[in-house]
């Protein structure tokens, strides 16, 4: 999976949307890069050039966030006036400005611009309530994890004709590109089924889209940002996850984009609480399994997380973090384990030669872990009754693989299944111990390990219920892996 794979085809999509006139002539991806970059960059530059068309450049300036007022330095009072006419909520702020500060600075309108920009930058640090800030599209939230990048994008559906008219081309093209495709490049995917429709965010109505791609394609993503001149529209990306730190410098030097780095656990909690509050297009966001062990009677049922606290939140990404959440802003990280989704997938790759998570899960669904694992009954011939250990319980994960004959008798599918069961059981038992230690009985499992992973979810549900004798409830959430990204988006919009 070369880092270029995502970038190159994405180029083409962007190209189609952004340069509609030339799209028909766009050659195959790859070789055309250099050529295409030229007109794009020129236009991008022109957007921030003070001499060019008032409305377009004003848009460019207005959308600027801290760190990039290179394009804003020479904006004029005139442009601001014109803006005021077009955007009523911007006016509020400007009226405020008129009352408070304008008398000092009349005739030095460019300083106004500077000050305003400085203020907007501060809004990241202090919750300044400037409604206008919230309208700087595009609205992204980014979560750069160890394996996957999760991107949430808010698509405004209440764009007025006027707005549409003044929307810069590149912004429009992003919107169209993201919303009209379900796959980006060979590895980027939009989870259409997760889309949240008719959401109201900061007074704007629209749809929330959920997109993911592998973290190793991050360089291509940044390169694309540079090529498309993201910096001209929206210079601060709210990003969380370890990658927000790791790629910060690349974003800045290659993409001219400043990342607003956010703590991943803060974002996770914000995200999950918010998403749970808006539901899932009229359905419940949170669910649990009834009869998880019985494949016929097993039912996925909605769960009302009305009283969420205290809550044990188990986030299973590449690794696992376990948080005890006591209120909206009181939580602690109880522990974590390095045996997570990355371990499952990594071991599966080694053991079965599979190349994708989907493939690993598909194999696991067809395998039988009891051929691989040594069960209590394999050692005892039945239950170990005295300590309540049923014969079916796993005594030693992969324990049968010590024997040559048994090794020869197992399939790759069996190994995949055993890996899945091993990792899941381990997470389940650590989560159970944490729940007991913290005295919490609701355990919410999230993270992309659980994506399309019913086996793991049902096993977690069953194991938690069985070993806690019904005391603990395993809960799951539809948008399992996206909460960090949602949290980052909320931070951008300063939604508490």
């Amino acid at each position: 999976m070369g880092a270029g794979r995502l970038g190159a085809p994405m180029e083409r999509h962007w190209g189609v949307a952004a340069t509609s006139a030339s799209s028909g002539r766009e050659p195959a991806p790859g070789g055309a890069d250099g050529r295409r970059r030229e007109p794009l960059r020129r236009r991008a530059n022109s957007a921030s050039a003070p001499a060019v068309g008032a409305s377009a450049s004003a848009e460019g300036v207005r959308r600027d966030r801290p760190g990039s007022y290179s394009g804003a330095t020479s904006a004029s009072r005139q442009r601001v006036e014109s803006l005021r006419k077009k955007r009523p909520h911007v006016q509020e702020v400007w009226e405020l400005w008129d009352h408070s500060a304008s008398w000092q600075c009349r005739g030095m309108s460019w300083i106004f611009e500077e000050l305003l920009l400085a203020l907007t930058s501060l809004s990241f640090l202090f919750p300044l309530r400037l409604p206008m800030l919230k309208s700087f599209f595009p609205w992204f939230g980014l979560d750069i994890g160890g394996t996957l990048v999760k991107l949430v994008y808010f698509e405004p559906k209440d764009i007025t004709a006027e707005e549409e008219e003044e929307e810069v081309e590149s912004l429009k093209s992003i919107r169209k590109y993201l919303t009209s495709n379900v796959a980006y490049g060979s590895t980027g995917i939009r989870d259409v089924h997760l889309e949240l429709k008719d959401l109201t965010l900061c007074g704007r109505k629209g749809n929330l889209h959920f997109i993911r791609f592998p973290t190793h394609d991050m360089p291509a993503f940044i390169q694309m940002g540079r090529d498309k001149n993201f910096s001209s529209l929206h210079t601060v990306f709210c990003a969380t996850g370890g990658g927000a730190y790791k790629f910060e410098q690349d974003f800045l030097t290659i993409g001219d984009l400043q990342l607003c780095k956010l703590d991943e656990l803060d974002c996770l909690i914000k995200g999950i609480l918010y998403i749970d509050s808006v539901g899932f297009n009229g359905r419940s966001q949170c669910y649990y399994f009834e009869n998880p062990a019985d494949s016929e009677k097993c039912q996925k049922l909605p769960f009302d997380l009305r009283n969420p606290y205290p809550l044990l939140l188990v986030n299973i990404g590449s690794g696992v973090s376990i948080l005890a959440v006591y209120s909206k802003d009181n939580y602690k990280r109880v522990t974590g384990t390095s045996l997570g989704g990355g371990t499952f997938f990594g071991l599966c790759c080694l053991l079965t030669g599979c190349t994708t998570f989907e493939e690993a899960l598909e194999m696991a669904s067809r395998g039988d872990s009891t051929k691989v694992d040594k069960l209590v009954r394999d050692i005892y011939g039945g239950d170990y009754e005295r300590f309540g250990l049923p014969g079916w319980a796993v005594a030693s994960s992969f324990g049968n693989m010590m024997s040559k004959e048994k090794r020869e008798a197992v399939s790759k599918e069996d190994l995949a299944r055993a890996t899945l069961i091993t990792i899941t059981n381990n997470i389940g038992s650590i989560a159970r111990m944490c729940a007991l230690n913290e005295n919490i009985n609701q355990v919410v499992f999230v993270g992309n390990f659980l994506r399309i992973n019913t086996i793991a979810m049902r096993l977690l549900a069953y194991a938690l219920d069985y070993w806690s004798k019904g005391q603990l409830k395993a809960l799951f959430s539809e948008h399992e892996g996206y909460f960090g990204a949602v949290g980052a988006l909320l931070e951008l919009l300063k939604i508490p």
Partner: protein
Amino acid sequence: MAECGASGSGSSGDSLDKSITLPPDEIFRNLENAKRFAIDIGGSLTKLAYYSTVQHKVAKVRSFDHSDKKFDELLHLASRGQHANVDTLVQDIYGGAHQTLGLSGNLIASSFGKSATADTEFSKEDLAKSLLHMISNDIGQLACLYAKLHCLDRVYFGGFFIRGHPVTMRTITYSINFFSKGEVQALFLRHEGYLGAIGAFLKGAEQDNPNQYSWEENYAGSSGLMSSSPELCPTQRARSGAFDLLEMDRLERPLVNLPLLLDPSSYVPDTVDLTDDALARKYWLTCFEEALDGVVKRAVASQPGSVDAAERAEKFRQKYWNKLQTLRHQPFAYGALTVRSLLDTREHCLNEFNFPDPYSKVKQKDNGVALKCFQRVIHSLDALGWEERQLALVKGLLAGNVFDWGAKAVSDVLESDPQFGFEEAKRKLQERPWLVDSYSKWLQRLKGPPHKCALIFADNSGVDVILGVFPFVRELLSRGTEVILACNSGPALNDVTYSESLIVAERIAAMDPVVRAALREGRLLLVQTGSSSPCLDLSRLDEGLAVLVRERGADLVVIEGMGRAVHTNYHAALRCESLKLAVIKNSWLAERLGGRLFSVIFKYEVPAE
């Protein structure tokens, strides 16, 4: 998990479908004589413990299993690997920024995380290391969670996974420290894999004679912890074969706690842990090495009629020397290393080569000489005023204690100058104030009401017990205090044994009416400690002694001698008054304690109300 008395080829689990082929090893040949054995059929290994009445010892052995060798290979492989090539570390996700976050970049974020994202081939070594880390960390974490849930701060790890491998133990320890933030301690056991088999054996043995005896490890027969690292000592591992040995002596009497221990669960007999204290360890190992010649000489001399005494003594020298060398390289090879364990190992090795009591003749002679002086000593004591007498008694106790063949400084003098007398010893003693001196407090106490009953642990034969302890006992008896005099069950150095103490008491009784009356009236009782060590473990004492202590309501414990009051029990907390006396007959130790050779320890303690 264990069956008792199952045959070696029997099996209940279907996973063990082959009969066990016993390798042609001497250890298994003993099995033919075995009266009883226990077998633990585990998931991957079968462990065996047996008891052979011929030797009165228990040996436990491990069966051969081909998967076993592979396991060692795997660990060997792991010790050469780099897990960071396979695992996703925090720094892989956070880049260089982990420092600013206060995270250690070397933490594993996702085990085997890299094996999913790269097309590279991974080396077996790296994969094995990563796997080892993953499993060890996970075990450590789960153990911590359970420890926390049950409010425990120590975790003992057993089972064959550990196998004495330092990589495994280190990773588990690291994991425990990490997850518990240092609050939980990881502890390992020398015979970690055999606990089930040993337990099954003991359980079976109990069915015959419940609580009729105790077991004690025999350091001479037991194997130490296997080599510390496969790279360091591959030959050691190969030579010692594939079995461990735990030899236990069956003591024909049950051992229990001294009822007067303040907190039996926290009582540790040993004063210094030589595993921790490298300086002291170095000194004591050298000290025991240097003393070895003298011990060998003494052993040969003790059996003048024996033709092979010299040969056996030489074998003893080799064995003990080797043990000392093992301990130099691996101080924890036999568990916590202490002066006591070094002394006990020497006694066990002497026994092994049939030198059960090298000092028997010396002790007899010393006793004879001392008994002759007894009446004279008593007369001069009786001539003193009360206060002078108390000090003279204590000085006598201390002076007697100088007569100790266990201490090299003294045995040299005794060898070269047999006329070294009691008075000479008194002159050698440090003048007051002593190194540790609570004599005034003790004197003050003696002015008060008499103790109800004193328990006295005697040390050496000869001058010590006859001219030091008995006059002191006599004084206590005259005050109306009952006395329990406890002596070792078996011989150790020149320490007085229970049987010897009976003879001595009889001889004294013949001379002294006070002792005679007390013996007759049961106010002076002689008991055995249950031990054959020059040191004293108050948590393993003869049950008869414990019963007596309880019955008589002992309210004073007197512990005498370096081995019992300094190397062990110096910090022992009791529920009653205690007197710990010793003369430091070792210049290094004296210096370490801030004194000189023949410094005096007089530690009188009264428990806090």
